[in-house]
């Protein structure tokens, strides 16, 4: 039995969010738990594992069958590059690597305090990727360009 199994037990079925850059695990967990339907899901969290792909990684295991689609977009914003694996009978049956999204719709707040989206009620924010390498996004309204990590995630419980 490997050390990894001892540190965070395997799950029979559920979702594993893997390759989270070390330090972002708790942020990802906060986002996950901001979804009311996820708040009661049995969750295991592992921090600072050694990884062959990235220097150190965090990992979250959820005993649920699927993630809300909007949560996937949140993950793409908060930690692009993570992998989401679906596990059945202790085996990975599906794996998806979350890449930098082309657009971010309704899940991020513009960081320009003068942007109309921060003042007009119920405007759905919209950002498009202008530089995938540098992960820079352009607000469709104020036209400002910001790195993805500077965009504040709008979590459902705060909407």
């Amino acid at each position, binding site marked *: 039995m490997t050390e990894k199994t001892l540190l965070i037990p395997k799950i029979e079925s559920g979702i594993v969010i893997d390759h989270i850059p070390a330090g972002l695990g708790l942020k990802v967990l906060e986002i996950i738990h901001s979804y009311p339907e996820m708040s009661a899901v049995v969750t295991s969290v592992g921090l600072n594992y050694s990884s062959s792909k990235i220097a150190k990684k965090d990992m979250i295991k959820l005993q649920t069958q699927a993630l809300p689609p909007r949560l996937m977009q949140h993950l793409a914003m908060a930690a692009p590059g993570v992998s989401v694996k679906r596990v059945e009978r202790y085996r990975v049956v599906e794996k998806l690597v979350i890449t930098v999204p082309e657009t971010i719709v309704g899940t991020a707040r513009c960081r320009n305090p003068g*942007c*109309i*989206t921060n003042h007009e009620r119920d405007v759905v924010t919209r950002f498009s990727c202008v530089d995938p390498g540098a992960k820079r996004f352009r607000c*469709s309204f*104020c*036209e*400002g360009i910001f790195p993805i990590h500077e965009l504040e995630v709008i979590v459902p419980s705060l909407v």
Partner: protein
Amino acid sequence: MKRDLISIADLGRPDLLRYLEQAAHVEALPAASKSRLLTGRVLAVLFFEPSTRTRLSFEAAMARLGGSVLGFAEATTASVVKGESLRDTARTVERYADILAIRHPREGAARVVAEATGIPIVNAGDGTNQHPSQTLLDLYTLKKYFGTLDGLKIALAGDLKYSRTVHSLVQALALFDAVEFTLVSPPMLRLPEYLRESGPAARAKFAETEVLDDAVERCNVVYMTRVQKERFPDLLEYEKVKDAYCIDARLLQHAAPGLKIMHPLPRVNEIHADVDQTPHAGYFDQVANGVIMRQAIMLDLLGVTP
């Protein structure tokens, strides 16, 4: 599908050239035939920020095309003071008008209105973001002076950080060939990086300086801007830079031949009145061209062929 004029970033070089041709055509029309082109059409002007030229220019443009105008010139007289959303205001006004020009202190306001309504929207200035009709009239003025927009050497001086006019103009001129920009500003009012790094501007040639004198000697155009007190979060910062640059007749003694001084107006101290009588003064030509270009814009967006 309706069309709007929200941002220069939405346009390509062919669009800009189409507007320039349309404006030249409109200018050449006899006044009598122009005065019936938009008979029965209504322009709504929603100005949530003070303006003299832009609002009156739109109103004059519509009046001379035979249409009529309604709207407000300050937000204090509108239902927004009662808490009405911008979109509800716009959705109401679109029932009264065929085309709408909006000025608003928040960046992106015109886009929000355009997406909420079914009539053509013209962005007449949204915060520090864009002022596309000003840019089109500036391009028209430049084209009339120099015959072409390719190869221009233009200095942009003053408040390059908050000036929506400058932001739009950089994006537009970057679509033309071999345009050279000289950015003249104090360090705290530099052009935002994202405007130089994205779109066609990423390929344009920029030089930066804090000294205006050299630009006057080297460039075809010096485009002055007012340091906008209303955009500064800290008025102490404004006091430090408010009179950073001033052009007067003495400075122009060393000007390049044919140099034009342009300014979107209003000016405060950036251009001395003694420049007005020199052949370099171009700012009142911009005012006149503004009416022509705004006629061209409204005709284009309303699908009326003059």
